[in-house]
């Protein structure tokens, strides 16, 4: 072979290599009728600020799917409806999605009450229901629901245990805990479990209070918290309740030595002056080792960019967005592996297989389709949430800081 011919051959190979990705992407562009995935989110109402994170995550995931090969080579269409933060509306809309819109697959709504309502509909029509934010595993009896809120089957026991373990490992472990919780079902469930766990561990619980979801005036509750002056305040709250309670306490010139927030709005608490050293739980934060999880490198930067554009106060992927991404990853994994859109085929595959996701590897072979409790303890440090417990998941150089 002459040198000229060899050069020509090399050029040909190089040209082919340069063109190959374009050719591949052209071939991979999804086509045909869309795979329609239906679901609701609380786009309005009291749950809307957090549901917005799930909307952004879902939009990003569907866009990324469609930029690649879609599902089974077909584009994906997400039919998203507003359940107004009301379970009864969610139930009606899921009924509509199945019977009127005739969607191929379902995606769950945001938060326990809505998911429970949607689960009833999914069960009636034997549709698979992946979801991301269900906090009462013992109520989820349907065999084709697949949770990515990886609490494990008994979060009322395991989550408080993780939190109290983390605090017990500090130089000044708490001896008493005041528990204040919203009556929102999952918050109340896990907080009442925290009381039991605390008492079993020999911690004093001088105060256990439940208040109505939507309470605005925390003055009297704050007075009771100050009155008992416990070493740890467990706030079983959703959204901004925790911020409001801390503000009410500040008005009484009192700051709890330590405070744990069950389901806080992550941004407002992280940036609030009273939120300094606040504790919470998480399955994902934007630091190692989580950034090595499946899809993190691709999805995290996209979410940050999109959340910043949407004026989200804390434009970072945490439990909420990560749980949502993971739910979409379940659908993609099951459809890709089975090459099917049949709910029963997909459901059977998910029950048998482990799925690597943004929040870790999920399995659904435990009680009520729950696998491992993947929750860790995080703390606000320098205006940002970082995981501090268990140590192997802590952010580089981070540890649980004392008050």
């Amino acid at each position, binding site marked *: 072979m002459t040198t000229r011919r060899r050069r020509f051959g090399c050029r040909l190979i190089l040209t082919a290599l340069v063109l190959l990705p374009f050719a591949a992407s052209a071939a991979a562009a999804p086509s045909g009728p869309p795979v329609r995935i239906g679901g609701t989110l609380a*786009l*309005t*109402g*009291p749950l*809307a*600020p957090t549901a*917005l994170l799930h909307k952004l995550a879902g939009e990003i995931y569907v866009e990324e799917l469609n930029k690649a090969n879609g599902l089974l080579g077909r584009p994906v269409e997400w039919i998203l409806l507003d359940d107004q*933060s009301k379970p009864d509306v969610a139930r009606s809309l899921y009924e509509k999605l199945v019977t009127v819109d005739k969607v191929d697959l379902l995606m769950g709504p945001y938060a326990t009450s809505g998911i429970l309502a949607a689960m009833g509909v999914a069960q009636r029509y034997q549709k698979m229901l992946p979801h991301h934010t269900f906090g009462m595993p013992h109520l989820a009896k349907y065999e084709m629901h697949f949770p990515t809120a990886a609490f494990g089957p008994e979060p009322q026991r395991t989550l408080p245990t993780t939190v109290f373990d983390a605090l017990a490992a500090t130089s000044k472990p708490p001896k008493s805990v005041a528990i204040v919780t919203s*009556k929102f079902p999952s918050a109340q469930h896990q907080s009442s479990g925290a009381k039991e766990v605390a008492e079993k561990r020999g911690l004093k619980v001088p105060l256990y*209070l*439940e*208040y*109505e979801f*939507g*309470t*605005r*005036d925390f*003055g*009297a*509750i*704050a*007075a*009771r918290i*100050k*009155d008992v002056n416990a070493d740890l305040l467990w706030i079983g709250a959703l*959204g*901004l309740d925790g*911020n*409001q309670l801390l*503000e009410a306490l*500040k*008005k*009484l*010139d009192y700051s709890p030595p330590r405070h744990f927030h069950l389901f806080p*709005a992550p941004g*407002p608490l992280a940036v609030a002056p009273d939120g300094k050293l606040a504790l919470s739980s998480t399955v994902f934060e934007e630091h190692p080792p989580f950034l090595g999880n499946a899809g993190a490198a691709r999805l995290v930067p996209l979410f940050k960019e999109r959340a910043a554009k949407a*004026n989200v*106060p804390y434009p970072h992927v945490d439990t909420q967005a990560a749980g949502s991404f993971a739910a979409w990853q379940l659908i993609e994994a099951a459809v890709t592996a089975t090459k099917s859109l049949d709910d029963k085929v997909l459901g059977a595959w998910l029950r048998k297989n482990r799925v690597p996701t943004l929040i870790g590897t999920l399995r659904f072979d435990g009680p009520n389709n729950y696998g491992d409790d993947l929750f860790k303890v995080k703390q606000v440090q320098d205006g940002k949430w970082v995981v501090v417990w268990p140590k192997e998941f802590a952010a580089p150089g981070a540890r649980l800081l004392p008050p």
Partner: protein
Amino acid sequence: MPSLTLLGQAVVSGLLAGGIYGLLALGLSLSWGLLRLVNLAHFALALLGAYLTYQLGTAHQLPPWLAAAVIVPLFFLLGLGLHAVFTYFRVTEFTSLLVTFGLAVILESLIQWFWTADYRRYETPYATASARVGPLFIPVLELLAGLTAALLALATWAWLRFTYVGKALRASAEDPAIAAAFGVNHRGQGFLLSGLSAAYAGIAGAFIALISTLAPTQIWAWVGVVFAVVIIGGLANPVGALLAGLLIGVSESVTMAVVTPAWAPLVAFSVLILILIARPGRV
């Protein structure tokens, strides 16, 4: 057994929460009692006032008192406009419930469209400021709201009791035909009162912006308890509305401190039922 400090603090918290209830109830009580309009949109107007205070403060750095100086006259005009609509469509006491409910829903949607459903917090340096009296802490902003409510209630009472316009308004509410025969211009005074009620909603809104976290659905959080306050206080009775607000506020707060916060929402209606049993002709 709760400590005396806890009880004292609960009473203080209740009195201050009651001040806000009284402030919100004032305009509603006047329009219901004197114009026979059950104005559910009053709550939406108050929240709109809160959002405008927030907007003027955060986007235009206007201090809250200056924002209130802009919003209150604006709301007075809005009240006039609303009354013109009610008059044109001959809205009655019963239909006003439906019409103003619709208005409240529209206002809620507009608020959500403009400010989104995300929570809004107007951060001010004095948001958590408190005065200390012995072992008790008195939040400054809530105290200011309570004092404003007291001042407005007393001024409105004096206006209704001692001025010609006030007497004419009460006469018209009692018997419009006889009042008209004595030369009372009920139509004109209705506009004035409607404007005043809306202006009171604006004042309440300014305090709500400073004290609370704002969310569009908050409109509905007050409806039940403020209705109870208006009925307990007596229609068109500004001082009664304030006192009823304080009564409900203290009852709720003491219930939270002594029993459990989960029972607090029952208090307002339990008190209302007891009062209606004792005085069935209250409404």
